[in-house]
Every structure is written in structure tokens, then in C-alpha cells.
């Protein structure tokens, strides 16, 4: 059932699709470069985990989804939110803690949500959202729907009990969930080999008799090929898949972590930078004659304008009013529960 690394020949290049993929990945990259700047300026606070280096995973996966499919993810969530189509203004305003943020300034970097896009949020406790993803799969099956739920996570999640419990139930009940492990090599500063007894993480799927795959997370086409298969398996056969995507984070764990030094060397980082996912896609497109230097320049400039617009919007968005402090703790239950009780006698 296990699959070897996918090096199947690529299908014919699709220039329009490739341009969309490039645009999506470039948006995430340029957006997060400005996040780092805003963080340094104190405009973004708290924990801020950047996704730079992993953009092929979000874009490759999400480009295959239908609008009614679901996505749930971790606290490293900006890239996936943007790839799903969340407005950069709403994401940046949330990062700035403003009232026009997607969570009205109450969630911040780790908690991007957009119900209209079935984007079920960034979750802050490692592993805790994996059972939620299983629950979404349960709900799809309960209703007899043909959506799928994509559950993104980092490789450190696989050592939590929540991961084990959630994958066991998903396989036991045959739920339409694709569990995507973005193996970026480090759980904060602890290398995979120092945290997991198994280094081929996709093999964890064997414990649950779950179909599994591994792919190159720097190659957006490889990601799409793997995910296509997993998504179809979920949609058509109602069977979950565990996909390990081998990628690398070019930044520190969060903004307070140096890019290299204590737990990884500069040499290692530089080696991985040679496989920048955006660069690989751009080179492919240039080789295929789908993209000129001028096209690339134009696309990049357009992207920067979008990001600057998001920045300006966020800066102008008001702080949440103090009254908002006590809003959204509980919803008013307006259902029949509040109907007059029938007397006992």
C-alpha cells in the first residue's frame, strides 16, 4: 500500500494553471516577507509562524479542492488561508489585531478562520485539530456528502496521542479525510530524528491500515499528483489517506527564532534554499516557454501591490471596540430551548 517517492512523468504543462499556481505561491511569499517586516516594526505581536519555503504544499493541495471541501490546519496558517482565497486584507488586518481582521482581531496569526470558504481555522495546540478534522470527515459521511476534509499538520504532530486517536477512528470508520504531514524537518528546534522512532513518517499509516504516500513538497506538481490521488480516494471511496510531504521551512520556527544557528546549520539551510518551490516552478515555466522575465516581473509587481494594499488596509482598520471584549464568548440561543417550560403539574 505504501508508495515510493513519486517521480512519475509529469503530464503536459498547462500554462494557465501554472500561472495561477505561481501567483498563489508568490502571494504567500511576498505577504509573509511583509509580515516579518511588520513584526519587526511591532505592528504584529504575539507568536507569528511563517510558512516561507512550504508554499508548494498549500497551493498544490488547495488548487485541487472544490469550494465546498473543508480545510483545517495548525497555527502556521497564513499561507493556507491565502491559498484558499481568503482576502489578504482580512488576513493582514487580523495580524495587526484590527476589527476588519477575519476573526475581528481576536485570533491573531495562529487563528485564521473563514466560514464562507470552509476554512476551519488555524489551531494552536499541536495535534489537537487532528481529531477535529476526523470529526469533519464524520459529518460529511453522516450527511452522505462527497466533500473531503484536508487536515494539514507539521511532522511533530505524529508523536501526539491526538494524532493516533484521530487516524485510528478515520480508518476504522472510513472517513473522507486527507491527513497531510508537512514534514519541514523540525518541530520547533527538535529534528525529526530526535523526536520520532520512525523517520519515514508516512509509514505511520500502517498502524491504521491507512493508504499512505510521500511526495516532494518543493515541487508543486509532485504535491498535486499525490494529493489528486488522495483526494479522489476520499471523495469516491470514502477512504482516508496519510500523505507525508517533504518540505523545509526557510525561516525560524516563529519570529522569535533565529533562522539558523542552534539546531540547524547555515549550510543546511543554504542547501535547501536551492530547492525553493517558487524558483522550481518558475524555472519549469521558463523552460516550457510559459513565462518571460517580463511576465515574472509584472506578476511580482502586481503581487506586491496586493500586499501593500493589505498592509494599508490593515493599518487603517480600527482597533476592535472595547465592547467587543465580551462578544463572541457564547452565542445567544434563540432556538426553542428558551421557550416557556411546560409546568410539571
Amino acid at each position, binding site marked *: 500500500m505504501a508508495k515510493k517517492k513519486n517521480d512519475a512523468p509529469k503530464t503536459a504543462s498547462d500554462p494557465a494553471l501554472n500561472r495561477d499556481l505561481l501567483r498563489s505561491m508568490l502571494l504567500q511569499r511576498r505577504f509573509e516577507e511583509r509580515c516579518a517586516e511588520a513584526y519587526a516594526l511591532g505592528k504584529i505581536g504575539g507568536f507569528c509562524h511563517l510558512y516561507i519555503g512550504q508554499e508548494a504544499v498549500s497551493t498544490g493541495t488547495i488548487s485541487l479542492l472544490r469550494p465546498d471541501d*473543508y480545510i*483545517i490546519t495548525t497555527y502556521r496558517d497564513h499561507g493556507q488561508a491565502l491559498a484558499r482565497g481568503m482576502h489578504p486584507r482580512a488576513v493582514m488586518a487580523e495580524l495587526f489585531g484590527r476589527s476588519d*481582521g*477575519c*476573526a*475581528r*482581531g*481576536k*485570533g491573531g496569526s495562529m*487563528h485564521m*478562520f*473563514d*466560514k464562507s470558504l*470552509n476554512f*476551519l*481555522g488555524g*489551531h*494552536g*495546540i499541536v495535534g*489537537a*485539530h*487532528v*481529531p*477535529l*478534522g*476526523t*470529526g*469533519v*470527515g*464524520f*459529518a*460529511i*459521511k*453522516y450527511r452522505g456528502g462527497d466533500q473531503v476534509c484536508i487536515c494539514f499538520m507539521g511532522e511533530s504532530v505524529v508523536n501526539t*496521542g*491526538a494524532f493516533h*486517536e*484521530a487516524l*485510528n*477512528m478515520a480508518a*476504522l470508520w472510513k472517513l473522507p479525510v486527507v491527513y497531510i504531514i508537512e514534514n519541514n524537518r523540525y518541530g520547533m528546534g527538535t529534528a525529526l530524528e530526535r523526536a520520532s522512532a520512525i523517520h519515514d513518517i508516512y509509514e505511520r499509516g500502517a498502524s491504521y491500515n491507512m493508504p499512505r504516500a510521500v511526495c516532494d513538497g518543493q515541487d508543486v506538481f509532485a504535491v498535486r499528483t499525490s494529493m489528486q490521488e488522495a483526494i479522489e480516494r476520499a471523495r469516491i471511496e470514502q477512504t482516508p489517506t496519510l500523505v507525508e510531504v517533504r518540505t523545509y521551512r526557510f525561516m525560524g520556527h516563529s519570529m522569535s527564532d533565529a533562522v539558523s544557528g542552534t539546531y540547524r546549520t547555515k549550510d543546511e539551510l543554504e542547501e535547501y534554499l536551492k530547492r525553493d518551490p517558487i524558483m522550481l516552478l518558475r524555472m519549469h515555466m521558463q523552460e516550457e516557454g510559459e513565462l518571460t522575465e517580463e511576465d515574472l516581473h509584472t506578476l511580482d509587481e502586481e503581487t506586491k501591490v496586493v500586499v501593500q494594499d493589505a498592509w494599508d488596509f490593515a493599518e487603517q482598520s480600527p482597533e476592535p471596540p472595547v465592547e467587543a471584549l465580551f*462578544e*463572541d*464568548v*457564547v*452565542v*445567544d*440561543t*434563540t*432556538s*426553542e*430551548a*428558551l*421557550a416557556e*417550560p*411546560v*409546568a*410539571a*403539574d
Partner: protein
Amino acid sequence: MPVITYRDALNQALREEMQRDDRVFLMGEEVAVYQGAYKVSKGLLQEFGEMRVVDTPITELGFAGVGVGAAMVGLRPVIEFMTWNFAVLALDQVLNSAAKLLYMSGGQYNIPIVFRGPNGAALQLSAQHSQSFESWLAHIPGLKVVTPGTPYDAKGLLKSAIRDDNPVCFLEGEMLYNTKGEVPEGEYVIPIGKADLKREGDHCSIITCGKMALVAVQVADQMAKDGIRVDVVDLRTVRPMDVEAIRTSVEKTNRAVVLEEGWELCGIGSQIVDYIQRDCFDSLDSPVVRVHQADVPMPYAKNLERAAKPDVAKTIAAVRKVMYLD
């Protein structure tokens, strides 16, 4: 009016709500084929099928999270914990997911879920199976915490909990399941957050919740024989707490005993005493006295367990103390 057990009252509530709303399902350990560890779900698998009455592996953290995920996308799960002692394993999902998603998402994702099961001590189950979690849970903004003590309250409140659009922790009791009481046939609901005056009196208030409501009623009935009239305020819900009912009673009696099943430090009683000192300071004729479990893990030996638990005798002594009768 029919007299039924607390167990059957819960069963009726589940059945009626599942008939009323297809989105409601029951999930937990032994709820389906086994018919419920305490038979609360008896017959439900046969009536509703295995998609709506779902046996899980022993995996509290996992299935609590499955419930939250299903609730995020529109279902209305009832998650049964075989006991709240085991729910400690799932506390992350209750605290960090169910209770917070509405707030963290800026109001986008409310979580209509019920977490239910027996709470507190039964008989000789010793330390790991005899704990009261109402104060732990009541500490958390975003939750509602319901503690019915009678069959009537159990049914009406469970129906409200299932219809509530927020996460509700519903605390039952092994020792309550066989207790009997009048429960009307047909539809009724009891609003969450409303206390009930289980006995009326003007000499002393006992403020309590859950299983201890039965103890308080026994105390009131016994003391009535000596002409002492006790007001028994059964909170029924500890979050949100019916502060108005506490105030009304204490302003009438000028004396209060606070009775709870759990430990003393930072217990539900601590909060009730705080409300009393804030709102009724000038009404008090004596300091409030608390009755609670001894500050130890629950022992196994019968005599030690008895010594650890709050009971009728200890509560009577507390009432006599606040009335300066000794």
C-alpha cells in the same frame, strides 16, 4: 404524573431530541451495542441506527475532538463520557477547542455540543473514579455547566442543552441514575441558568447543586421536624450561575450554608460565598459555612469514604452553626 428514574428521564430526553432533529447524534464508549455503561442510551441504537448512536474506541481525547469537528460543520453531537473522571483526558478539546472556537474565530464558529456523563463519587470507587469536576469546568468562559439533581430537571435540562447553540457540560451521577421522581409525559424544557427552590424556608439558606440537592432536601425535611425552616436553592446550572436566586434567598434568611460535592479550595462554594459577600453583606447575621468533600483523594475503605464525603449530618451541623444553635 408518571414516576420514572433519572436514567429513564435522560433516555427520554435523548430519544425525543433525536426524533426531533436529525443533526443530533450520540457518541461515546459503549453507548450503542452495550446499550450504555449505565444504560442511559438503552434502545437508541435499535431506533436510530449506527450512524447516530456511535460506539467509539477508548479514546476520549479523540472522540471529544470528533464531536467538536462535527459541530463546527453543523451537526449537534452529544458526547458521552463513561465518567467525567475519564473526560480529563479530553479536557484539551473541551477547554481549547469547544469553549474557545467561537471567540477565536471572531464569532464565526459556534459549537453546539453536549458533553455528558456521571460526575462525582459513587460508592467505594476510590480516588481516580470519584471526582467532582463542576468547579474545573465552570472556570472556563465559553462553556455552560449543568448539574441536574432530579429526574425532572435531568430531562428538561438535557433537552435544553441539546438545543443550545453553545458547548454544554452536563454532569450526571452514578448514584442519581436509579433515583426516581415525577416527570410529566410529553414536551417540556428547563432554561439553562435558572435555579430552583427545592424547599422553602426563612431560617437558613442551603445553596447547592447536582447530587447534593438531594442531601439538602433531606436536611430541610429533617430539620423541619424541629421547626427549623430551610430554604434550599438548587442552582441546577453552575455556569451561568443564577446569582439572583442566591441573593433572594439569603436576603430572606440572612444565613447561608453552601453545600457542594467537590473539594474546598477554589470550589463552586468559593464562588457562591463571593457572590454572597458582594451582594448580601448587610443581610448576613452570621458567617457563611461551607460543606464539601475532605481535602484528600477519595479513599476506598467504607468508613474513610463516609468521613470524606459531605452528607446530611455534616450539613445539619453547618446549619445549626450558622443559626448559633449549638
